[in-house]
């Protein structure tokens, strides 16, 4: 099979969905051919195929972008709206949370809102305090939306396709640092169901629950620790909310230990929900408390070495795992 990057995977999934369903269309800043197909090229080549109505380059108007997606979804289309960087959801949370997420419920089921909000973010790019936040916890706390993030090209393709299929809004988070990852193309029509985690690596001593870019760190750390005889099970949630509780709990019941890991700041992060839930549901299986690792509780700093220090460190992951399994 051919190798594809995550960028290509996302592009292929969208292309395929647009070919299959005339109701699928994209909108966002710079997404059309005239602008080069998006600043990260995810919609590259699609204007040429589907015309300007289906790849709409918009003004810098995130409220209008999401609002338009909501309206089009109510009318039965399947919009894919791009918010260029995740921090900019700050200007359009109302449309996402008070509208997209609630219209199915508030209408008594009459108007589902099938739409995908693609956005990207990531620490380590040098973008500084206003362009690097991971805000998935905000959305996870809202009823009526799925929050999805891929950690590899195959999942990117499959999750994007499933997100476009979904009959509810999906926040689809891409990590800038993952766009260049390469892997085998799972091929046309591939779907990864929403709400299903992947066991990225099996293990028996501890469950390391994560998603997105930090899955790579988790796997690297698991590799290292394997050499020291510690067997880490790495769970890639893929869907952050509502997440695959069954897989997580089964893993923890098996290993008896758990650590959550995300790039987002630790306090009140998604790891808190997962940890709280694990201790509640797996109390009798747990050999020790669930630990949590997350980004530093500050804005993301600019200076490169500060930014690197801000991110969850592999050394800390190793230390925490060792402390957990009692090998420190």
């Amino acid at each position, binding site marked *: 099979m051919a190798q594809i990057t995550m960028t290509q995977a996302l592009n292929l999934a969208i292309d395929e969905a647009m070919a299959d369903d005339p109701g699928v269309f994209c909108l966002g800043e710079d997404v059309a051919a005239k602008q080069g197909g998006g600043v990260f090229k995810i919609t590259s080549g699609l204007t040429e195929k589907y015309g300007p109505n289906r790849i709409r380059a918009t003004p810098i108007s995130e409220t209008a972008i999401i609002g338009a997606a909501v309206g089009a979804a*109510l009318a039965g289309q399947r919009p894919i709206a791009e918010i260029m960087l995740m921090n900019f959801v700050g200007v359009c949370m109302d449309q996402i949370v008070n509208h997209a997420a609630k219209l199915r419920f508030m209408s008594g089921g009459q108007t589902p809102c099938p739409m995908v909000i693609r956005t990207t973010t990531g620490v380590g790019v040098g973008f500084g305090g206003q362009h690097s936040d991971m805000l998935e916890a905000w959305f996870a706390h809202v009823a009526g939306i799925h929050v999805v993030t891929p950690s590899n090209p195959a999942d990117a393709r499959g999750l994007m396709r499933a997100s476009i299929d979904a009959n509810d809004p999906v926040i689809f988070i891409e990590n800038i640092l993952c766009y260049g990852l390469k892997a085998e193309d799972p091929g046309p029509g591939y779907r990864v169901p929403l709400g299903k985690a992947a066991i990225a690596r099996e293990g028996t001593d501890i469950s390391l629950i994560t998603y997105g870019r930090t899955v790579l760190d988790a796997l690297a750390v698991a590799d290292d620790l394997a050499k020291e005889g510690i067997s880490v099970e790495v769970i890639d949630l893929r869907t952050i909310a509502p997440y695959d509780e069954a897989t997580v709990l089964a893993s923890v019941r098996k290993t008896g230990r758990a650590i959550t890991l995300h790039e987002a700041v630790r306090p009140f992060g998604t790891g808190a929900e997962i940890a709280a839930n694990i201790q509640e549901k797996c109390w009798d299986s747990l050999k020790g408390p669930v630990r949590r690792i997350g980004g530093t509780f500050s804005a993301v700093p600019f200076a490169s070495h500060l930014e690197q220090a801000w991110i969850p460190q592999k050394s800390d992951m190793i230390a925490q795992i060792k402390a957990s399994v009692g090998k420190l």
Partner: protein
Amino acid sequence: MAEIDRDKLLDIYTRTMKVNRTDEKFRELLMGGKVAVMYYCVRGQELVSAAAMAALEKDDYVVCTYRGQGEQTAKGIPMEKWWGECLGKATGTCKGKGGTMHITDPDTGIMVTTGVVGSGLPIANGLAMASQNNGDGRVTLVSFGDGAANIGGFHEAMNMAQLYKLPVIFLCQNNRYGEHTAYADHTDSPNIASRAAGYGMPGVTVDGNDVHQIYPAMVEAVARARRGEGPTLVEAMCYRMMGHFFGADFSYMPPEHIAEMKAEDPLPKLRQVMLEHQFTEEELDKVVADINAQIDAAVEHALNAPLPDTDEIYKDVLEETA
């Protein structure tokens, strides 16, 4: 100005009175303590909604606000379902889960009723975008207040609609107040329609209490949208003759304003127009009597209707819970 034909006048009159009688009935129920829900009175704005809805086709889309009773009933939501929703009953348009501020009835094109000021405009663009994409010929009308014209979403939506020439009509019901704040205390704009030029969009200000101004303006805006020429901002000057919501104090309104408002009441003016067009008092009274009877029956039905099941709180959250 083109004459409005007699059938259309009767249509507008009927819709206007439906809005008015619904409003009166709601206030009567609230006053009597029969029901206790949030209700945003539309007294004084009946004609604007009626004329706007009369200018649309049945399957055109409408987006309105918490103060949307006018659009909702004038567009034709079945009264039983409308009252059912307002009274929080299982028979309501939204099974009682949306309520007075969130009436949705896709069958009549009432696609969203939103309580967040100004949030309807961007959504209206999306409905219109869908029509532009799939060529279904529909237009979308979004109604909002003068206060809403100051929020960011208004601006973004106006600019985007004009850029894409979306088939959308922006109807600003300028009732001179946003909650307790008078027009002059929320903007220095000479009028809201003047903002359209900055987007390259046509904008008009009309007297919303004069059927010969508001209806033709709506017809023209709808026709323009239908022809694919893009959006229009129609500002209908009107008055909010009650407090912001039922029961709310409105002592902040100066006496001159109240006097002006009473003098401009659209109902006697419209009645006068009807009489000038050879409708008889009896005919007009009959229209109102029929409406009253329908409303009474609908209210009765809603009052007696069952409550939604308690487990509705878990339903319609995601498709899986539908």
